[in-house]
């Protein structure tokens, strides 16, 4: 566990309490079955705004608290534990893009609204089913053209931080932007967004794009960490309670060792994920490596734990009624988002001169 200051401890505990009381997995199920057009519950998002979580990475002069990415990660991790549906991660990282960017107009127009939860923003980077940094979208005379695939929270976003070949732009929902929902296994909002001469405000060059993608990746890792925690503990609890052959399953050594291995991997995952978030806050020059390390390990570990969760629950793990499948499906999406383990091992290798 990273060394947290008092504010961070408070933030984490508050987020945990909120997630457990207000946004348990049953809330996710309800939302999934209701399938609202925006993809999230506006009431829940309003409270997230009131608690200032979207502003955790926004400078104080724009209404944020500037606690940084480790703090944001702590909150996102708590939400991830319960599969809470929230545009928080997308909005916060998009806000960072605006804050780090060069457009004062964009800062003035958007940051306060994003910090308070009044508006939702997201990133529109990838153009295909795989994350890569090959970007074809272009901007001419302040108008952006290109199609972005699987934009998380695309259904409800008021603003898009869009990658074009020459850098990062801000595009408001509306003129020149067509959003088409994509229903995926995790029942969360993903959309294809087509920009057809949409008015775009430049935020920065391709360096900024990479810096923002690294932040988004680290925050995704925080969600994965929360999910891995819960998936692990639910499985452990189940084994302690399910009786077969006249004994609780947790007395079988074959299963004990499996759980012990997962617990060990989970510890490594936590270190790697917190390490990446801390590297962001410290502005470290090897940030890219820290992020790739975190995503590679997070993807592998969550994959292991979510698959084992289904297996070790036996038949009930295959049913919709139990949570295992929900963790499995969200896991697979996050394993893919912002690059698979394989992608990040490759990037890590390059960064290290292999």
């Amino acid at each position, binding site marked *: 566990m990273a060394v947290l200051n008092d504010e961070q401890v408070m933030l984490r505990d508050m987020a945990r309490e909120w997630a457990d009381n207000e946004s348990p997995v049953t809330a996710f199920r309800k939302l999934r079955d209701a399938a609202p057009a925006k993809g999230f519950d506006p009431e829940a998002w309003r409270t997230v705004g009131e608690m200032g979580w979207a502003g955790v990475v926004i400078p104080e002069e724009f209404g944020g608290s500037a606690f940084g990415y480790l703090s944001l990660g702590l909150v996102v991790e708590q939400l991830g534990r319960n599969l809470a549906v929230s545009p928080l991660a997308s909005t916060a990282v998009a806000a960072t893009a605006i804050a780090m960017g060069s457009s004062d107009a964009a800062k003035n127009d958007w940051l306060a609204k994003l910090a308070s939860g009044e508006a939702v923003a997201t990133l529109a980077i990838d153009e*295909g*089913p*795989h*994350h890569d940094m090959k970007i074809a979208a272009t901007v001419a005379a302040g108008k952006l053209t290109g199609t972005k*695939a*699987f934009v998380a929270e695309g259904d409800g976003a008021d603003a898009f931080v869009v990658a074009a070949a020459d850098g990062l732009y801000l595009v408001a929902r509306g003129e020149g932007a067509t959003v*088409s*929902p*994509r*229903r*995926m*296994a*995790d*029942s969360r909002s*993903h959309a*294809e967004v087509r920009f057809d001469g949409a008015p775009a405000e430049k935020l920065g060059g391709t360096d900024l794009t990479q810096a923002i993608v690294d932040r988004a990746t680290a925050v995704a890792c925080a969600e994965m960490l929360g999910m891995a925690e819960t998936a692990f503990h639910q499985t452990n609890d189940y084994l302690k309670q399910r*009786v*077969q*052959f*006249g004994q609780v399953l947790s007395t*079988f*050594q*074959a*299963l004990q060792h499996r759980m012990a291995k997962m617990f060990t991997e989970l510890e490594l995952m936590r270190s790697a994920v917190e390490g990446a978030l801390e590297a962001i806050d410290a502005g470290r020059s090897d940030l890219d490596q820290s992020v790739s390390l975190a995503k590679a390990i997070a993807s592998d570990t969550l994959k292991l734990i979510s*698959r084992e969760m*289904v*297996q070790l629950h*036996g*038949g009930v*793990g*295959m*049913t*919709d*009624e139990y949570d*295992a*499948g929900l963790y*499995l*499906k969200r896991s*697979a*999406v996050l*394993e*893919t*988002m912002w690059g*698979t383990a*394989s992608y990040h*091992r*490759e990037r890590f290798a390059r960064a290290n001169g292999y």
Partner: protein
Amino acid sequence: MATAVELDRPADALEGFRAEVRAWLEANFPPALKDADNAMSAVEGPSDETPDQRKWREAMGAKGWGVPTWPKEYGGGGLTRAEAGVLNQEMARIGAWNPIGGMGVMMFGPTLLEYGTDAQKGEHIPKIAKGEIRWCQGYSEPGAGSDLASLQTFAEDKGDHYVVNGQKTWTSGGQWADKCFALVRTDKSQKHAGISFLLIDMDAEGVETKPIRLISGQSPFCETFFTNVKVPKNNLVGLEGQGWSIGTRLLQHERNSLSSGGGSSSRMNAGKQVPEIAKKYRGTDAEGRIADAELRTRIIKHEMDQRAFALTLRRAALDAKSNQGPSAATSIMKNVGARITQDRAELNIEIMGMNGLGWEGEGFSEDELTQTRSWLWGKAVSIYGGSSEIQNNVIAKRILGMLDHQ
């Protein structure tokens, strides 16, 4: 790609038989059905038969080739294993497929052939061979999964019939089945020796099913409730109290048929192979190879696993020439088959990226949506039919002679 079947091809006297098979297939397989076997139909339940499908099922049923090695007197094909292999090869060659399947074919039929009375065989086997009757498996109960012998469903002896009360769960296809082969307790004082093997009509009074939704979205199986269900005594297979050994024998047949998971003929495998999908979704390098070297390595590892498995299946088939049926080694096969099936699905969704995780609606091809569902459904293959952990226990104890710790 060479398949297990090709590796198995004997260069001998079966050429005459092969010609006969070719001619028959030519005359009977409706070409419109080429490759039309739906990989997910086992999961999604029966769809309405088209006239072509019906014609094909009836032709295969009449010929007995849906169950090629079963005895002719009960409607089977009466073929040797080698001949059945030729039939498979010839069907695969033209994109034909076996329209007759299900639990009756995979597990119940072979078990009844071994343990049933002549009257029972005469009554049930021909209908299975023609694909006219669907069977479901009433084994698991909420408290009796891996520990099957703790089942509680009770059949009370009433002289000429039993009265059955209790609950089964995970009854695959229960809502579509005509009949159920069930393990029931006839004696509460003994664990294993108190179990009997009973055939129950699913439309008998007091039988009720309630579908369960799976993580893949489908509901192909049920909770099944028996309330004072009257079952005639002649529906008992074997002797009272012999159910455990008959039931576990049936499980060997189940494992045996499930272990084909890594082979080329499995329904879940239908569709494109991993390397083709990789080339399509990830592109190729200047030499036409899968662009990503690390992915290529993992695909090759998968392919090699699959080949080694196919060779092992073949070796086991040769070993079993003495025709003793499936043995404890089926546990090995079931686990490898399950692993390979799941590895392949994981590889496929990874290769397809976000497109491999589509659920419904626009933006995904039919293939992609099927891939998502079969990835999720496939998580069951290491759970049902005795989980991988239970198979490992069988391997450790029965094959390796290791003892329970205590």
